[in-house]
Structure formats: structure tokens, C-alpha cells
């Protein structure tokens, strides 16, 4: 110790005149940093209520609560996260993981109260002073906890694909499927949007865990057509997928296909539930499409004896005769149907109901009847000259292709319509070596077909002619001269979709070898007589929630599938079949109908 040790400390007196460290008005002068993790803000319109924030929150600080004025709809649970600041640790994992990116944080941090019960609120719903704060924690650019990119699906090259009816989509390897399954956050928004309410997060988890038998069991709980649906389902679920709010939705359909593809038919019985003991009841099903066979599957499982009456020579309905082989190869469909038949379902092929096998007689012989005859008849173009021999029916063309008949479409084909049938017909024609024009009355974005289908049809070489209103078909030396009027889209009424309005004078015409009409299909209902007591309104049997069309008379009649529902896709038909099967079982077993 020396004298310096007494003097040196005084040296810092020189700092006495420097600016002090003190912040004069700390509360007002010091906002949180631009990245500060303060109180939550949520864009309630962007938020879909998937609850991923709730799932990642280690503190259970987030609760999804119903919000007034926000109803559940497809792709939106109607719930919004409520944050409990008695739990929150401001880690912002919820912000990092939020699939839609709606949840963020403001840089506000002062909230004081005497009541411990007030520190919870629903951001974006209950107004707070920090709503809409521009500053605060946001997910950094290039940083996401979730993967917004789908694992690419190997597909045939389009030039290659158009040469044959080989299946276009090749399917995933185990590694690819597991990687895709990993993207799922199990929010379950998809379940609500699936007509059959399939246990989607459950089977995706099964893929992740490599437990495909569990996956298959979950699939068959609600859908006995996993091979078919894994390929051609309209996948409404993927539109609802929360990951799809800011990225590619999880490829639910391909994962379903992966499960079904990986399990051999011989192993199905190991994974799937056994048939219950015979109930001694007999059920007749009209139509061996997805609706009818689904009902058959669930009825057979419940121990009922099921006979399916099918007018065509093979089962599958539109899955077989309406969907080309390159989308749904017949072995895959046969696998689904084969398993249903293995449960003892009897399918009488080539046995149309109508003359000689009336609905009334079925009602005599069986304990219940389920009608699922679909929409087999194509509507005509309804323009002058529609009876021209080169004007073909789209559904019939597809069926002929299935039967392996020579289509004889010619070199230039026009397909009129914008639905999936139109796309299938166009691509079938392409595979038959034709050059194809697709004529649609509205714009491409209005087309009811799957965007994938449209994209692929175009990639394979089909030319899309938008806003073409069919006017007439004239004869041109055995060929068809198709005349159409170019349209312009006019928003005639607010809130409704725009109407194609013909542009005066903009008449085009083109000579085609074939004109395939695919503007829509209607039902075949001549087999239902008035005496059957099935109420029909506007060519649709009127059914209740369970699909019951009539209980009067002999055996009750149920109806479902395209015949009845508005969705008109396979999965809706499957859902109808399942629902009707449950209702029939309740009725037959007397378990409170």
C-alpha cells in the first residue's frame, strides 16, 4: 500500500461534470427495442386458429378460445389464441412457429394491475393500446421453425406422360414421406374440412412414426378407399391446412397414398378391424361406386349381409369409368375394392336396377336399401347441332377408354367444359394422339377442375381457350364445325361471380374431328317410381341428415353420393356411405334410430 492508494480514487472527480448516466424519464423515454419481445399482437383475420402456438407453448400460456363473430369455417377453427401473462415467458416461440405469421409481438411492456385475473387477453380481438404496433418482435427473415416447402413429388415428365397411360405420380419413398409428414403440426383444421372427417393428423403421425398399420387402420376408420383417395381425392383438407397459409400445404393426399401403397393387401386384415358377428340382416346397395361400396364396407363390418347391384361390368363407378388410368391405375382401385369384397360383400355386376329388378322388389327382399347411383348421364351442350355425330359425351369417352375400346377421336379434339371430367377427357384425348383445345365459358381461375389438373393438362399440350361460349355445331363434311362466341366477364351483381357476356361479333369457329361435351352430368332416376315414396326434388332424392330418403313402406331407403350431395366428389360420397351405413345399422339393430 502506498500513497497512491489514498489519492488515486480522487482522480475520478474529473467525471463530476460529465453527463450523468441517469435516464430522466425512463418510462416515457425508453421504448422497447425494435425487436423487443413485448405483448402479443395478432392479426385476427390472418390467423386461422390452428393452435400451433398453443402446442409449442411450454407454459400453457396460450389457449384457443371462441371469439364472438367468428364462426368456424373451412380452414379456420373460429378460435383465436388467448395469452395468459400469468404464464407467458416471452420466449416468442409462438411467433416463430405461427404457420400463418399472424402472431407477433409489440414492443410494449408495461402492464400493471391490482387484480391477478386481468392479465389474459385475446390479441387482435380485445383492443389494447399496442394493437397494430409496427415495432416489436417479428420472425427474422429466413428463419422459420416450420418448413413451408413441400417435399417434391416425383412425376413422369410431361412429354413422357402423354405417350402412355402410365401413372403420372410416382409416389414417395419412406424418407420423403417421413420428411413431408414431419411438416404437419397436427392442428386438425383438415379434419373439419374433410367430408369424411378422416383422422388426418393421426395417420400423418403414423407415417412419421413408421407405423403404417396404425396408419391404415386410421384410414379405414372413415374411408375404405385409401388407394383411390390417395390419388384422386379433391383434397379439400389441403386447402384448409394451416401450413398452407404461408407456404405449401402438407401433401395429405400423397401421404394417404403412401400408407396404402406400402401395406400389401394380404396384410390388410392384420391391421384392420374384424367383422362383427352376423346380424342376420340384409342390405341392398344400388351402385358400386365409392358411396355404395363404402356403405357396403361399414355395413359388412357391422355384421350385415350386403349385396351391391352394379349396372356396369366392373365395380368402382366413376372411380373406374370416370377417372383415367394415368391418375388412378386399376390395380390400386382393385386393391380397395378387393378388400371390401374380402369382407363378404357381394357385388352383382351387370345388374342394373330398373326393369325386372325394381326398387320395390329390393325393398321386399332386403331389410334396407342404399341408393348411390351417382350422376352417370352427361348433359348435352344444348346448342343447335348438338346431335351431330362428332359431338361426344365426355363421361362416355372416359368409360370407353376404361373398357379399352377404340375411341376414334381423330386428330383434333375440342373439349367443352372446365371441370375435372373435361380435364380427364382432354388428357385422354392427348394420350390418344390428338391435339386438344379445351373451351371454357369463363376464365381459367373460375374453372371448377383441380388447379393441378389444369396445370398438368396444359403442360401436356392442351390449349386452353377461355371465355368461349358455345353457339352451334355445324357439319363440315363429317367433321364438326364448332362455333363459339368470345365472352367478356362482367360483374353483373355485387357478391356473385362474374357472368360471361358475349362480345357482339366476336364469333370464332374451328373444325374438329370430335367435340367432347363435359359441361356437367345428371342423375339417372327412372328406376325410382312414385309408388316408392322417395321424395325427389329437382332430380335429387330428399334425404335427412343420415341419408334416409324414406322410411315409409317396406325396407327403409337411404341415398347418398353424387346423387344427393352438392360436393360431387369421391370423398363426399364415401362420407355419405359411411353415414348411411351407421344410420342403417342403428335402424336395423334398433339402437334408437
Amino acid at each position, binding site marked *: *500500500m502506498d500513497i*497512491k*492508494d*489514498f489519492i*488515486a*480514487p480522487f*482522480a*475520478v472527480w474529473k*467525471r463530476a461534470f460529465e453527463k450523468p*448516466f441517469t435516464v430522466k424519464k425512463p418510462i416515457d423515454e425508453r421504448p*422497447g*427495442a*425494435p*425487436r*423487443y*419481445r413485448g405483448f402479443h399482437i395478432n392479426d385476427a383475420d390472418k390467423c386461422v386458429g390452428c393452435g*400451433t402456438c398453443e*402446442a*409449442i*407453448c*411450454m407454459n400453457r400460456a396460450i389457449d384457443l378460445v371462441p371469439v364472438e363473430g367468428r364462426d368456424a369455417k373451412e380452414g379456420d377453427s373460429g378460435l383465436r389464441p388467448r395469452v395468459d401473462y400469468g404464464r407467458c*415467458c*416471452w*420466449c*416468442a*416461440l409462438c411467433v*416463430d*412457429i405461427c404457420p400463418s405469421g399472424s402472431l407477433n*409481438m409489440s414492443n410494449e411492456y408495461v402492464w400493471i394491475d391490482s387484480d391477478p385475473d386481468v392479465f389474459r387477453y385475446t390479441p387482435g380481438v380485445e383492443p389494447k393500446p399496442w394493437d397494430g404496433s409496427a415495432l416489436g*418482435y417479428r420472425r*427474422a*427473415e*429466413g*428463419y*422459420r*421453425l*416450420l*418448413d413451408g416447402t413441400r417435399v417434391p413429388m416425383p412425376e413422369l415428365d410431361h412429354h413422357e406422360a402423354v405417350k402412355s397411360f402410365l401413372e403420372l405420380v410416382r409416389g414417395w419413398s419412406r424418407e420423403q414421406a417421413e420428411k413431408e409428414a*414431419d*411438416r*404437419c*403440426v*397436427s392442428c386438425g383444421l383438415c379434419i373439419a374440412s374433410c367430408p369424411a372427417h378422416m383422422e388426418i393428423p393421426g395417420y400423418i*403421425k403414423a407415417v*412419421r412414426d413408421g407405423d403404417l398399420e396404425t396408419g391404415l387402420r386410421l384410414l379405414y376408420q372413415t374411408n375404405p378407399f385409401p388407394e383411390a383417395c390417395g390419388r384422386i381425392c379433391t383434397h379439400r383438407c389441403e386447402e384448409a391446412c394451416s401450413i398452407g397459409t404461408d407456404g405449401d400445404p402438407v401433401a395429405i393426399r400423397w401421404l394417404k397414398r403412401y400408407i396404402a401403397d406400402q401395406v400389401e393387401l394380404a396384410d390388410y386384415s392384420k391391421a384392420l378391424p374384424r367383422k362383427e358377428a352376423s346380424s342376420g340382416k340384409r342390405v341392398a346397395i344400388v351402385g358400386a361406386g365409392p358411396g355404395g361400396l363404402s356403405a357396403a364396407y361399414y355395413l359388412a363390418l357391422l355384421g350385415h349381409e350386403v349385396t351391391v347391384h352394379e349396372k356396369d361390368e366392373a365395380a368402382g363407378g366413376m372411380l373406374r369409368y370416370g377417372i383415367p388410368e394415368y391418375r388412378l391405375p386399376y390395380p390400386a382401385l382393385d386393391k380397395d375394392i378387393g378388400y371390401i369384397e374380402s369382407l363378404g360383400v357381394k357385388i352383382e355386376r351387370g345388374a342394373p336396377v330398373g326393369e325386372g329388378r325394381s326398387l320395390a322388389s329390393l325393398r321386399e327382399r332386403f331389410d334396407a336399401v342404399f341408393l348411390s347411383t351417382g350422376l352417370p348421364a352427361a348433359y348435352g351442350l344444348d346448342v343447335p347441332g348438338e346431335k351431330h355425330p362428332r359431338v361426344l359425351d365426355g363421361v362416355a369417352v372416359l368409360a370407353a377408354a376404361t373398357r379399352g375400346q377404340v375411341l376414334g377421336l381423330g386428330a383434333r379434339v375440342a373439349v367443352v367444359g372446365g371441370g375435372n371430367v373435361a380435364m380427364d377427357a382432354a388428357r385422354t384425348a392427348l394420350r390418344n394422339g390428338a391435339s386438344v383445345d379445351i373451351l371454357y365459358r369463363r376464365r381459367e381461375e373460375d374453372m371448377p377442375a383441380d388447379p393441378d389438373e389444369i396445370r398438368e393438362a396444359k403442360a401436356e399440350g392442351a390449349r386452353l381457350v377461355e371465355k368461349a361460349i358455345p353457339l352451334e355445331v355445324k357439319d363440315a363434311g363429317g367433321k364438326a364445325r364448332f362455333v363459339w362466341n368470345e365472352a367478356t366477364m362482367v360483374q353483373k351483381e355485387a357478391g356473385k361471380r362474374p357472368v360471361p357476356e358475349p362480345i357482339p361479333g366476336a364469333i370464332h369457329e374451328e373444325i374438329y374431328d370430335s367435340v367432347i361435351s363435359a359441361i356437367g352430368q345428371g342423375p339417372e332416376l327412372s328406376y325410382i317410381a312414385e309408388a316408392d315414396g322417395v321424395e325427389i326434388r329437382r332430380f335429387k332424392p330428399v334425404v335427412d341428415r343420415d341419408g334416409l330418403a324414406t322410411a315409409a313402406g317396406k325396407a327403409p331407403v337411404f341415398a347418398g353420393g353424387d346423387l344427393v350431395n352438392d360436393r360431387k366428389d369421391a370423398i363426399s360420397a364415401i362420407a355419405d356411405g359411411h353415414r348411411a351405413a351407421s344410420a342403417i345399422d342403428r335402424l336395423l339393430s334398433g339402437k334408437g334410430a
Partner: protein
Amino acid sequence: MRRQNEHVIPPETRATPDLSSGKYLVMWQGPQHPGITGNMSLRLVADGDTVVDCETHVGYLHRGFEKLMERRLWMQNFPLVCRIAVPEPDFNEYCYAAALEELAGVTVPEKAVWLRTLSLEMIRLASFLMWIGGQAGAFGHGTIAQWSVTMRDYVLDLFEELSGGRIYHMYIIPGGVRGDVPDGFLDHVLETMQVIKKNLDDIELVMFHNAVFKMRAVGLGYIPPDWVDKYGITGPNARSAGVARDLRKDLGYLAYPQLDFKLITGGRSDAFERAELRLAEMYQSIDLIRQIVARMPKDGPFRERLPNPLHWKIPAGETYVAAECTRGEYGFYVVSDGGDKPRRVAVRGPSYTHAVSVMERLVRGVNIADVAGLMVSLHTYPPEIER
């Protein structure tokens, strides 16, 4: 009376005093006591004003982290770990993240490595600044804390800018870090380092050339070098005892092998030297931060993409990842059974050895008034004692 520069070699074995003799005074220091470094307590037995026996009592801050972590997903644990050592959360974050990365076989991008190093050095500086205020305060010198805690706050401002958090940064996430540096951040770092360096010069003048501090700290709490291995003493406490041990050099993790710094060791091993050594390490940290800022890659990804955190499974295995924190070796031992949650996490913090085993022995023979100063000179954080 201890004289200047005289080491009291503390007795290692405990001679249980006969409390019924009436000769001894039993007193509690803590948990509610200004002379304790956190929420823990010492049961002191004093003969006159000299402590003859000490028993540490911990458990006031026990939250059961290691158990809680077994119930949470791998990623969900990342906000939890930083709470283990409150004044320097980043070491927890780093060790946990690095353990997971090792088990899962993830390589962290170069940029993240440097940002992690920056973050660790910044928190080292902040933690030392907090400590030096306490050290001076324990000897009645309140001014230092007025300065140094503010300097620490400036570092926290930097953290706030970088990560969005003041105390708990939650910046080092498994796979990398949570964001790149914001615009102008590195300039702010350099400016702040300038301010802190100037302040440290003042502190050196006022504290280390202060007769009172010298008289009370020199010779206090002598740690014999042979205790270092015996009791698992690490960090500045060990280096002050002359043992050249620093995980930054020994393990060479993160960007440390690419940085230019020397190991600082001492030999006198008393409270004064430990303080001096820590001051030197603060200067060293400033130097390291400047080096990092200068040499950090400007671009590149800052986080490796990991699987979906909601069902991230880590292959079965176990690992121990350690880092040199301000007080010594900080380590995470993580066992995975291949599931989505840790099977076992054990945290090794230096505070346990320093504040319990070493403290109980060093405090014998020390004046009651010096207990607080001695305790601070070991630099311990009670929340970290009980994981």
C-alpha cells in the same frame, strides 16, 4: 487480526464447535440479508467476530429444472434453460443448444458460430460488471455499483437490440441463432465497448487503488492451489490459484480457436487478486468482442433448418457439452432415449462447488464483516446452485 498480505490458510476439516458452551454466537446470514449474493443463507457460528463454522443452506430457488425439462419437448426447453443462471443466461442457451446439435448431428452455420461467440462474450462482460459492483458494495464501496451496473445495462441494451430480450435473451436456439444482427448493431457494440472501457479505467483507479479495498480484500479467502482439483474449482477462482485452466482454450469451442487471446493466471489466490483477474478478463472480453466484430462473416445463413419442433426426435445418445462461463465450467449433460423429450438433463454449474463446498471451508477464520466480501469474491449465483 489479519495483517496485510497475510494469507489465512483455512482449515479443511470441520471441528464442530460446542454450541452449548455459550462461547459461540450462531447467526444466520440470509436469505433475507443484504450481504448475500442471492436467495440463499449461511448459518454462521462465530467466536467473537471470527467465524469458526459455516453451513450453507440452499433450496430457496429450487424450481426443479432438470425434472421440468424431462416433461417438455426438446425445443420447448430452450426458453427454460436460460432461467437457470439469471445473470448469464446465454451460457445455458449455448450449452443446451450445442448438446442437442451434437446428439442430432447438426452443424451450425459459420455465421451462427460467430454470433454465439459474440453473445457469450457480451454476457460475460455484463456478468462481470454486475459482479464488480457487488464486490465493491460488499466492502462498503457503493460508487462502483452505480457505475458498473449502468455499464451492464448498456450491454443489456445491446442484447435487447440483438435478441429482443433484456435479461433472458433466448437468442441461441438449437440450430443456430434467432436472427441476424440488426442494422448498425455492430457499431453500437463498438461504441458501447469504448464507453465501458473508459469506465473500467475509472473503476480500476477507484477500486483497485483504494486503500480500504486493498486492506480488506488482500489476503482474504485464500484458496490453496491443491484445492482446485480436490473441490472442482474452475474459472477465475482456479486461474487465480495459478492453475491455467480455461475451457475457451482447452476445448476450443465456437470461434475461440480463431480469436487471439491469452490465458490470464495469477497465484496469490485471494479476494483481491481474484477481483484483479476478473477486471483483466473484462478488458479481455472487450478485446475479444472487438475481434469478433471485426472478423465475423458478414453474410450467410444464421440457422440450420431443423425438423418440426413439435415432433423433433433426437437419436438416442448422451453427451456433455461445457463452456467457460464467467465463474468457470458450465456444462450440460444431456441424455436422449430417441424420443421427443430429453430423458435426462443434468446441469453442472460452477456455483455449487464455489458457494457450497468451497465457501463453507473458506469462511472459517474470517471476520463476520468480511463474509459477504468473501462470498462475492467467489462469484456465485444461487439460482444456478439448484437446478
